[in-house]
């Protein structure tokens, strides 16, 4: 009686009743089983925080989204999903003496019946090393097409941003087409490459440029976010 919300559980449930209710609610949510995230303490990580912002915007309870861009995607989306980065390789010296970082995301976990309408790769850039002060940097993202043992991977240019070396903040790259390609052809998902150059084309060490990677704070970890439109009606299986 002291509950602010009067729960539907008016009496103490027996264990088997509780399990039955859990099973039914999972069924309503379209989940085959209760998820067991391997790091439940990660709610303060960048992706959950970003997703919580979206949730608040969707529920019209909290602050509005930072960009109209996101709002449009969100209004149209039935589902939004963020993906954790699985691999991060720093290649300080490639065969062409180019600095780059690699990222991989597993897009095979997408529930059935969902089609990607937009996808973004988000990475945080802190202020660059002092020696780059007052210069403009070009951050470019590539899709890895083919990998070789003895030479640089074949890549496809996806998007680039020009930023001031002294600036800090999230960089957002549109990778919608690539994500769709990976959903259709998971075996061709060889990840993304990120490079930083000066305007005159000189490759810069990723860490010196201020790009935050796996060793950075949890709240600034790179992630991929995809917006989905349901292509069918969710039907629960007949029991």
């Amino acid at each position, binding site marked *: 009686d002291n509950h602010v919300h009067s729960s539907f559980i008016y009496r103490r449930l027996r264990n088997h009743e509780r399990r039955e209710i859990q099973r039914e609610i999972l069924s309503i949510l379209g989940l085959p089983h209760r998820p067991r*995230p391997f790091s439940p303490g990660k709610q303060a990580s960048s*992706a959950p925080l970003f997703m919580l912002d979206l949730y608040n915007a969707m*529920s019209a309870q909290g602050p509005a989204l930072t960009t109209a861009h996101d709002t449009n995607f969100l209004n149209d989306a039935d589902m939004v999903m963020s993906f954790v980065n699985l691999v991060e390789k720093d290649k300080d010296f490639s065969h062409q003496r180019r600095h780059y970082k690699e990222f991989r995301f597993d897009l095979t976990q997408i529930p059935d019946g969902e089609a990607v309408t937009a996808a973004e790769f988000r990475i945080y850039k802190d202020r660059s090393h002092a020696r780059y002060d007052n210069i403009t940097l070009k951050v470019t993202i590539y899709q890895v097409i083919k990998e070789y043992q003895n030479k640089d991977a074949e890549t496809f240019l996806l998007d680039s941003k020009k930023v001031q070396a002294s600036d800090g903040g999230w960089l957002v790259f549109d990778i919608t087409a690539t994500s769709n390609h990976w959903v259709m052809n998971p075996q061709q998902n060889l990840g993304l490459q990120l490079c930083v150059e000066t305007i005159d084309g000189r490759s810069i060490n990723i860490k010196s440029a201020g790009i935050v990677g796996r060793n950075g704070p949890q709240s600034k970890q790179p992630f991929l976010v995809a917006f989905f439109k349901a292509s069918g009606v969710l039907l629960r299986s007949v029991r």
Partner: protein
Amino acid sequence: AAGGKKKNHNRNKSNNQQESSKAPRAGDYNTSEQKQACKKHELYVSFRDLGWQDWIIAPEGYAAFYCDGECSFPLNAHMNATNHAIVQTLVHLMFPDNVPKPCCAPTKLNAISVLYFDDSSNVILKKYRNMVVRSCGCH
């Protein structure tokens, strides 16, 4: 007549005539006169009570509501009723043992969003349609 007498439920009184914050008690359905008209009742599904805080980030739960009560003739003035529910009521009056009364069921439903982790610690924000009863009526 259904809904003529409104029971005076104590706490959590709502201005909305359809809402009731109490679950029905065993004695409520003893006689036809005591039955309440079809209306919306409070029902809170608590993800916290289910022990799911480790994977559901938000919300802690949601007010789902449910519809319960009698659909008797004349159908309550403030209650939505389908045309067929009226016919069903008339047929029930003619053949009470063979034909049931119309059902008290949701007429408008709202969506909720749920934010949760999957097994791989990816985060999913999903909109679930038809989860919250906005209004009840006779079908």
